[in-house]
């Protein structure tokens, strides 16, 4: 990664993250198909909802014949972390037009958010529409095409898990987290490590006491609040 914010830099910066989209996209295509959804519905879901984990939840809730309202509510809860991420990201696009802001927002994912936060460490805290929009479109097209491939090949490659591709996304988060801590000069390393440890503990406890759809968003909210408290108390 460097300080360039051109579309060429975006292509280069996004390349490592596409394995995550391919792995999960293939898996979603296969699972959607084997759950009895038509190919076009599986692909439409990826194109229209574009939400990774929430799509898996949706398919399993559909097969279990849950009411539409509770599926939509679950999706909203699982994805409400997007509000935190787009709030954070919006600060860097204030000078761009509303249309550009809407484009950036509409294609925001966990991965593009994490990638952007990493990029900031190399660009004196700047992002460009050209850079993020290019990165977002590569991610989106990869996701939709991988879903299509998974849905079409569903009966042939019964298990993309065998190739370890389901770990691409997690490996990416491990990498981006490590690189983030390494590069972020605005917060002390000790405070960052403490925030990470507290978040791990919070995640574990949340998994015991909360329904699965709430774990990530509640952990995110409480984790950030604890981070602020610890920062003021000890740093």
């Amino acid at each position: 990664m460097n300080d360039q914010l051109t579309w060429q830099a975006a292509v280069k910066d996004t390349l490592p993250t596409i394995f995550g989209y391919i792995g999960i996209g293939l898996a979603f295509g296969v699972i959607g198909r084997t759950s009895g959804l038509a190919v076009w519905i599986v692909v439409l879901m990826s194109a229209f909802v574009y939400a990774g984990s929430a799509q898996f939840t949706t398919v399993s809730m559909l097969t279990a014949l849950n009411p539409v309202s509770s599926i939509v509510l679950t999706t909203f809860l699982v994805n409400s972390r997007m509000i935190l991420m787009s709030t954070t990201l919006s600060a860097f696009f204030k000078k761009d037009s509303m249309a550009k802001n809407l484009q950036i927002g509409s294609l925001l994912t966990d991965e593009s958010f994490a990638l952007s936060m990493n990029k900031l460490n190399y660009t004196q805290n700047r992002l460009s529409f050209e850079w993020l929009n290019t990165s977002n479109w590569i991610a989106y097209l990869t996701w939709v095409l991988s879903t299509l491939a998974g849905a079409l090949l569903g009966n042939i490659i019964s298990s993309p898990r065998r190739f370890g591709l389901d770990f691409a996304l997690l490996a990416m988060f491990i990498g981006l987290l490590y690189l983030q801590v390494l590069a972020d000069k605005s917060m002390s390393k000790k405070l960052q490590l403490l925030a990470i440890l507290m978040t791990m503990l919070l995640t574990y406890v949340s998994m015991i006491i909360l329904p699965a759809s709430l774990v990530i968003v509640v952990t995110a909210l409480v984790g950030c609040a604890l981070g602020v408290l610890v920062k003021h108390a000890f740093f």
Partner: protein
Amino acid sequence: MPSSNVILLTMLGCGLATWLSRIIPFVLLKHFQLPKQVVEFLSFVPIVIMTTLWFSSLFTAHMGHLPKINLPYALASVPTFLSAILSKSLLIIVLVGVLSLMLLRIFGF
């Protein structure tokens, strides 16, 4: 599976709910500044979100019970983390991660 109409309606609802979470902050915050306290709160979002997205995937949750560890994911995280320290390259980290899990599965984990 429910009927196509129900599935399409579900998809429409899920798509809208997700899209609104994505764009509303961009629309609302276009013209005004967030208070300092909120900015400070948000400065923790990147590491907290990345940590919980990774760590929660290492377990299967059953509310009211202790989370069950996903051993292959937990084990594959170790070489992945080591490759992060050694290479500092996202591409290598992802490849090492995928390869590690593939090998673990071959050896029966």
